[in-house]
């Protein structure tokens, strides 16, 4: 099972923390969380993946979907602190070539 924490920082950046396995079942949940955030005006989002133990291509799909709506709303979606197992999934689909993971949640939007 997965737990997805969401909070919005003082600087208006939404932080999403999926804890556990981000698989095809959890992907839809993540998709909804991201859509809600953008829908309520938070278009700058950091997904903190430090506690995401597993990720599959459906999870990647949800991240891309969130990225699309964030950019359309004039913001962006950044990912931070993926564990090695998750990084491997990014590499398998070449997603690492387009979406760079940040080392830190707080500074994810600094550049």
């Amino acid at each position: 099972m997965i737990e997805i924490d969401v909070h919005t920082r003082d600087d208006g950046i939404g932080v999403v923390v999926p804890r556990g396995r981000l698989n095809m079942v959890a992907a839809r949940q993540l998709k909804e969380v991201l859509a809600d955030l953008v829908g309520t005006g938070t278009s700058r989002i950091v997904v903190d993946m430090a506690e995401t133990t597993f990720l599959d291509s459906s999870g990647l799909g949800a991240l891309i979907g969130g990225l699309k709506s964030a950019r359309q709303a004039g913001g962006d979606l950044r990912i931070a602190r993926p564990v090695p197992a998750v990084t491997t999934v990014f590499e398998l689909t070449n997603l690492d070539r387009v979406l760079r993971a940040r080392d830190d949640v707080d500074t994810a939007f600094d550049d």
Partner: protein
Amino acid sequence: MSRRLLLIRTVVLVTALLGLNYLTWRWMFSVNWSAWWIAVPLVLAETYSLVDSLLFGLGMWRLKERGDPPPAPPDRTVDVFIATYNEPIELVMATARAAKAIRYPHRTWILDDGNRPEMRAAAEAEGIGWLTRSADWAGMPRHAKAGNLNNALLQTDGEFMLILDADQIPLPEILDRTLGYFEDERMALVQTPQWFVNVPEEDPLGSQAPLFYGPIQQGKDGWNAAFFCGSNAVIRREALMQLGVSRYVGEVEEGVRRALRTARSVIRSARRQLPGDEVEVRAALDEIEGRIAEARAALTAGEALFDVTFRFQQQVAEVRRSLVAADLQTMQADLEIIASLDGIADSPDGGLATIDLSALDQMTQREWSPLGAVETVEALVRAVDVGRGGEAQPIMPLATISVTEDMATCMRLHTLGWRSAYHDEVLAHGLAPEDLQTMLVQRLRWAQGTVQVMFRENPLVQKGLTLAQRLMYFSTMWSYLSGFAALVYIAAPVVYLTIGVLPVQALSTDFFVRLVPFLVLNQLLFFIVAAGRPTWRGQQYSLALFPIWIKSFTSAFGNVFLGRSLDFAVTPKTKREKSGHDWHLVKPQLWAMGLLVGAAVIGLVRLAVGQGELLGIGFNLLWVAFDLLIFSVIIRAVRYRGFEPDAVPADAGPGAGPTPGVPA
């Protein structure tokens, strides 16, 4: 190696050697160059046929008869998808009920592309899921069945999905007999046969494909190239999603690269049109061009694309804001000039009328065209950036490059290193078209789809495929070129019988000694691999539908390279009410038959008056007879009045169709 496979390989080898021997001799020694206009087409058609035969042999070399499947593991999650667009509600519901009754635990969904309230009501009344396109699809390209499946993929979450056409009624054991293969973690797809219940034993429309759903698929399977055929297949979601994500990355990369190239041209062209005194605007355009160059360099250096595009978009937006401000300043300055002109004129008859109108024109030109250019740049990059603005979903796992999404999707899965399997057991009972017109539309659509893939993603040059996989995909595409060869096979005997021109140098012993054994061995190979399945109907249709194959080729060419429509039509699943026979649908075939018969008569007359050689006329008459035998199927097809259910017992089994794989 089993004795069967040993025998097959021996025959494949001997057939190939005989064929190569014959064709080498044909090219080297027997082309009648003085009649090149028929001699060259004939030897080319024969070369085509030999390549076809070699590719067929290559498949048979690794014929894989899988026999009983591994047991299905418990606790997998499965979605059963029934794709429909406009089929009658009852037909869809019959399939849906059977799907619901599949033994292995699963969820059943009707994917209703027609978005019909009565379809939804019928589904929900029986506890069956109903899905239609999400709001994301409004105003976007729909991509037919591929789009329908892509939409459903993102609304469900089972590990596996069974894909069914609306008229393919699954048997309760279909998942139990297929899920076991997925214990191999790299297995992406298991295809089972499409077999039709509403087809009489003699199969006048050639609906069953016992050779394809049998040895041909088993041969491809041996090379890990078993095809996905759109229905009756189980697919691993992870494989499709991985494909979707990696395609997405590739397309975004390519799209952004192109957008930046175009953006540079737009900016340069805007700058060329700029009057020399527009210093600020020129600086702005220069800055954007610099940013474009930076962005391209960053991509080349391997910086993450989304970082590059995000920064670029912000920079361009910044420049645009400054440009708008500059424009306003210019406008303001111009207005001041206008006002001062007014003041200087100081005459009630002067005013704005004294200003040259062309100066105003020029002003609007120089003010808006750079801004227009900048906005174009922004729009360009936005269109191809993360969102893939022109598509409903960024992730499109099922390929949308062809009207038959299945083959392209499967090929892409193979390029990513996934495996596929063909399980040779009928696990669904389908409905085939029962009239000639519907059948012709369906065959045209399949052929067009295949040729589209050949033009758009030629398997011979796809990275990630083994050589054999490339050839297995190419072989199916190659087979659709038979329409052109058929033209030659009709023309050659007609030419000889009517005007006595022989495309080969002589009908010598040499000729027959080389040709006949090859033809015999070729048929023997068919006979052995078919193992009792009927193959004659398929052989007939592969030549008799020559106008369809030619049309598929020309229309797909026009579609891919000239941007024309394919006149794509959804295959109707219901019987058409017809009173007369549709002879007009097969005019080219009737013409061909008429020509052949006419030529035979002329040939006989020429023989009677002592003008022709007995051997030549006799051989060509035999050839005509063979052609007519092939085309006779068209007459049967036109006269076919649809399926009479009483003609088969109530518990109709596969009968002449594919049977469960015989363990070798």
